């Protein structure tokens, strides 16, 4: 089970994501710089949080054209698993690998708080069996307000593509949506930070369960491993 964590100029949760998989789960994890055109061997590609390219133009709009994104797209098309966290989620939406878009929080405030999240039954990996009904994860973003047109929203709900919903909507997201997957079920994106929720000093340790749930798509045995 090999993990690749992308690094863009302005990524700032790359080390957190690395640490979640390398230390939290003890898996072989390495960084892939955005200028690379190949990912190497990777069972999971993590697009981490931060402010890639200073959030210029729109969050994720420029990172989407980084050389590595060609390889990420190929990985997705071959059924490879991808997890985008926060800015990583924004990048995947900009790249069209996930539906919808993220705009300014309705409060216009940067929200940095630990959220209660309702887990949705979103396919074989991400569901209440692998995660329980409720988890708690921190958020830290100014642009996490999830938007999608009516037809898109309907197809998200019909296909069970919503991963998580905020119990107390912090940013104005439609349907309180905190995370989604693509239709095929191998690309996951969320605004909350599992990478900031696994150490004893973190506000929760539910990040481990989220990482495992995503990995369980290809490696179901991971759900049986002890913490």
């Amino acid at each position, binding site marked *: 089970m090999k993990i690749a964590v992308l690094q863009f100029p302005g990524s700032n949760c790359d080390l957190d994501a690395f640490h979640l998989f390398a230390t939290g789960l003890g898996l072989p994890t390495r960084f892939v710089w955005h200028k690379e055109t190949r990912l190497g061997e990777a069972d999971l590609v993590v697009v981490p949080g931060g402010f890639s390219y200073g959030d210029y133009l729109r969050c994720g709009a420029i990172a989407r054209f980084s050389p590595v994104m060609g390889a990420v797209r190929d990985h997705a098309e071959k059924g490879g698993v991808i997890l985008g966290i926060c800015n990583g989620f924004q990048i995947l939406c*900009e790249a069209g690998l996930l539906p*919808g*878009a993220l*705009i*300014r929080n*309705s*409060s216009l405030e940067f929200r940095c708080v630990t959220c209660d999240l309702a887990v949705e039954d979103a396919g074989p990996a991400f569901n209440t069996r692998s995660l329980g009904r409720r988890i708690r994860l921190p958020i830290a973003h100014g642009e996490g*307000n999830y*938007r*999608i047109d009516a037809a898109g929203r309907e197809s998200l709900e019909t296909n069970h593509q919503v991963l998580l919903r905020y119990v107390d909507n912090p940013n104005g997201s439609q349907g309180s949506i905190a995370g989604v997957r693509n239709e095929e079920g191998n690309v996951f994106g969320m605004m909350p930070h599992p990478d900031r929720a696994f150490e004893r000093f973190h506000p929760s340790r539910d990040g481990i369960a989220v990482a495992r749930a995503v990995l369980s798509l290809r490696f179901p045995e991971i759900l049986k491993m002890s913490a």
Partner: protein
Amino acid sequence: MKIKVFVTPKKNVLDPQGVAVGHALESLGLKGLKGTRVGKVVELEVDAGDSPRLRAQLDKLCRDLLSNPVIEDYQYEIAGE
């Protein structure tokens, strides 16, 4: 040749920034305000003449990079030398 690209939030997409700016305009005494949308302008200077090919390329660049069609509309103006 100078090109001005205007990017605005789609009509049916919530614009939190526009709402906040609208409130400020009202508090400064603007009466009868019916809507405020905040977008952006991107100015390009290109060493090329206007042509259908350039416009096709511009449309693609506007769709792919300068705007996000999920939430934004764009239009552009081309001015001479």
